[in-house]
């Protein structure tokens, strides 16, 4: 729970926006496995500064990046074995956050503990739980197994963004912006008009889309070498959790050329961790199940994805600037294609309300 959010008053039936308290009881991405090492790094998650490091045995550790004594950032200290030593007065903390030595005191004070956070590594991702640690059920870590599956090849990147996770998820669930914000890469005009089937399963929002016999978008058609063809396109895009949006696409070529597959699969993984209301960490992966060793396709996928996602970053940062700086209130209009986003925003709102102790029907 964040104390800055205590004044928020929840109303039944509302949708989350950039001012809604962040959902804390959720597995979020702390970083990529490669980002967490014996060099202590710090990151802010849900308003709390966290120091991240690995034990000698390689286990990731997350503790609050703030010494309980004089608030010195612990990430500016050093590791002695598995013990984190504060750089200010040398207080020492074990990986659970328990103080094991305070050099200037004759005893180890029992109250000199730093909060630790549950972390779980599912390579290439290290997940963190910022909420009630008792609820940190590892079985609720979302599936991203294709990222480590040898049958798939992934490219990925990361951006810090001056946006919020509500707008980010809404953007990801909103496929009608593709041909306009991302012309030439992910969007085609046919796709924007294609009928979508949206459904909710628990707190997951799923959009199924089928588009038959139309040209593929460049981001899929070019690496598959089928831009000249008309293909069927099936996609499953889902708000899987406040931390994860996945988009699974299948491009079906009913008349494949000699030696080429008829189905091309793409799994896109969007990982979002709020740093605060108004700033997010964002990691993306674009995975494919063909031409696994082709560095040229890697390069194309990386560049095309980066271009598209930077277009999203620019748009979302511009929107938040307007929302935060324009003094005249506006209640944004909603239309039929916004249904998936509104379903997601209702879920985020209800999750935040439940964490604050509100119960709505």
């Amino acid at each position, binding site marked *: 729970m964040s104390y800055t959010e205590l004044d928020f008053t929840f109303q039944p039936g509302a949708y989350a926006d950039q001012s809604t308290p962040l959902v804390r009881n959720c597995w979020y991405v702390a970083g990529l496995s490669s980002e967490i090492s014996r060099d202590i790094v710090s990151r802010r998650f849900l308003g709390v500064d966290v120091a991240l490091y690995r034990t000698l045995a390689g286990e990731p550790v997350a503790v609050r990046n703030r010494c309980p004594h004089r608030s010195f950032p612990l990430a500016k200290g050093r590791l002695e074995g598995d013990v984190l030593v504060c750089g200010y007065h040398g207080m020492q903390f074990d990986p*659970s956050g328990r103080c094991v030595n305070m050099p200037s*005191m*004759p005893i180890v004070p029992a*109250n000199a503990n730093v909060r630790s956070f549950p972390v779980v590594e599912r390579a290439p991702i290290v997940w963190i739980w910022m909420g*009630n640690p*008792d609820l940190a059920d590892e079985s609720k870590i979302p599936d991203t197994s294709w990222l480590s599956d040898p049958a798939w090849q992934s490219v990925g990147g990361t951006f810090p963004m001056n946006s919020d996770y509500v707008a980010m998820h809404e953007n990801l669930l909103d496929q009608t912006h593709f041909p306009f914000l991302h012309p030439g890469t992910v969007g085609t005009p046919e796709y924007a008009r294609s009928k979508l089937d949206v459904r909710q399963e628990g707190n997951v929002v799923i959009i199924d889309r089928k588009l038959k016999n139309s040209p593929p978008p460049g981001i899929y058609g070019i690496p598959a070498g089928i831009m000249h063809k008309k293909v069927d396109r099936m996609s499953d895009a889902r708000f899987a959790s406040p931390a994860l949006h996945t988009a699974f696409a299948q491009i079906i070529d009913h008349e494949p050329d000699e030696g080429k597959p008829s189905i091309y699969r793409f799994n896109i993984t969007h990982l979002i961790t709020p740093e605060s209301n108004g700033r997010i960490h964002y990691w993306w992966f674009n995975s494919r199940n063909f031409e696994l060793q082709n560095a040229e396709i890697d390069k194309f996928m990386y560049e095309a994805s980066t271009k598209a996602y930077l277009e999203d970053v620019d748009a979302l940062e511009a929107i938040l600037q307007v929302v935060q700086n324009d003094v005249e209130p506006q209640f944004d209009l909603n239309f039929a294609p916004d249904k998936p986003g509104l379903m997601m925003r209702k879920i985020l709102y209800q999750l935040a309300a439940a964490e*604050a*102790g509100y119960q709505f029907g």
Partner: protein
Amino acid sequence: MVKSNLDVIVAGIRQLTPRIREYLLRSPDGAPLPPYEPGAHIELHTVSPASGPIVRHYSLIGGTGSWDDTPDIYRIAVQREDRQRGSAHIHDTFQVGTALQVSWPKNHFMLDRRDSKSLLIAGGIGITPILSMLRSLVRRGRHFEMAYAGRQAGDMAYRQDVLRLAGPHARIHVSGDDNRNVLDIQALLAAQPEGTNAYVCGPAPMVKAAQAAAAALGWDASRIRSELFSSGPGANDVAFDVELRASGRRVRVGRDTSILDALTAAGVHVLSDCRRGECGLCPLPVIETDGEIEHRDRYLDEEERASGKTLCICVSRTTGSRLVLDA
């Protein structure tokens, strides 16, 4: 950040055993109270007409089943002591609607979530922090074992909750009214696999027995984590006067009040922080006393204690009627 106390209202009272009552404390406007983790406690501030200001420490239980209380609730349990003391004041005067102040949660008794196995040992009212640890271990599906000892089954608060939560992993040990059948902590420790950490909360002899057993078995002392509310008054504590040499003021310290709390209530503000004899901020120089100084801190060394020239005013006191401090 300056620590201010939290306003709460007694929202529910439940008699758990003949001597133990559970109190639900709720924020006045239903807003969430600051969160806490297993082992945490609050200081409860109240004023007794007989003894003056009283500060008592109570562990936060968090709930009785595997669910959590709502975030606007702190759940504590108070055992009435034999004499008419602070806890009796609470039992006699707290009613639904009584307004109180409590501190922000503090945790001196942290459960290590990484334990390969956790051994929980509770004695009597020491069940309160142990129950919150048990709930956490059960909910997270961790490897644990628990022993809960008391003189009579009927005096053991949350006994049924413990059995329901822990199933075969907990055992209830009845030691009898004469306490003849004491829980064999050494046998309990000896049966543990390597890497088990033990969490002990109970009367001082139980905590000492656990530490002695660990030492006898060659366990690293850090594997025994214990909570002992040492700042609570002893049964034989008496009231006395404190004289402050510098200001010439005289302050009455009730038998249930610490010197620190009596001075604070009288508007004399001295340095302090932990209120449990650990941080070393509150010791004041002693000029004289007509009794023995009872040292109850962990901070002063043997030489300082033996000198009789200083004491931690948050927990220690005199057996006499007068204590003169150089302050």
